[in-house]
């Protein structure tokens, strides 16, 4: 899904919720996934202007889950440890919200290069 306007944020999280529900996620889990997608899509619109969100299904034999890939060719993040540091107060700002996303999901991976772009991959397994 391409993401570059604000309306795309709404579309992306709606898709995410639909996929999570399809997998049998509880309503709480589906909301966690949708919220994480919303934050990731927002980061793209806010910082990179343009990018994409890709949703996929996971199956490792025992568990099923959802994977969300948020990719952009924006400015990149110079200090990744700082950006994902888990301070308990995200003090409401329009921060990157990455620590929050990490708390919402089960797995969190990030790769970023200044001037090249950022890719965030998050996973949530069905309980």
């Amino acid at each position, binding site marked *: 899904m391409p993401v570059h306007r604000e309306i795309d944020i709404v579309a992306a999280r709606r898709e995410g919720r639909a996929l999570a529900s399809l997998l049998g996620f509880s309503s709480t889990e589906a*909301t966690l996934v949708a919220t994480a997608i919303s934050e990731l899509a927002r980061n793209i619109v806010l910082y990179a202007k343009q990018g994409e969100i890709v949703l996929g299904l996971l199956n490792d034999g025992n568990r099923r889950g959802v994977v969300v890939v948020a990719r952009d060719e924006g400015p990149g993040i110079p200090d990744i440890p700082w950006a994902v540091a888990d301070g308990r107060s*995200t003090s*409401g700002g329009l921060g990157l919200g990455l620590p*929050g996303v990490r*708390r919402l999901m089960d797995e969190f991976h990030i790769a970023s290069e200044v001037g090249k772009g950022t890719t965030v991959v998050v996973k949530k397994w069905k309980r």
Partner: protein
Amino acid sequence: MLVPILKQRDYLIATIQAALTDEDLRLLRDGLVEQVGRYRSRGVIVDLTALDVMDSFAARTMRDLAHMTRFRGAEMVIVGIQPEVAFSMVQLGLTLEGVSTALDLEEGLAYLDRRGKAKRPGKSSMTAR
């Protein structure tokens, strides 16, 4: 999608209908802040029963709205946050500090009524929450 703002007694009630874009939220915020003055409202209720995702932007807009409303001389209360949404919000670290909340529209109205009474002199038994 524009959020309808209803006027009831000296309160304004905004009921969110579905998934909102950031622009909708900004329009809602500006509309409410403007109308509080125009109708000399004492209270504002934002009903989020139908909202299925509250992310950092929505939470920040709600907090700003509550503060702006207060500067304009009215109380604001958010009602109807769904359990799943509340759960996600706290995981994300969004706690709407300093913003009043109530279970639903009925409770929100009762809350504003109490606040209204508490402000009047001679009814000092009511301490503001």
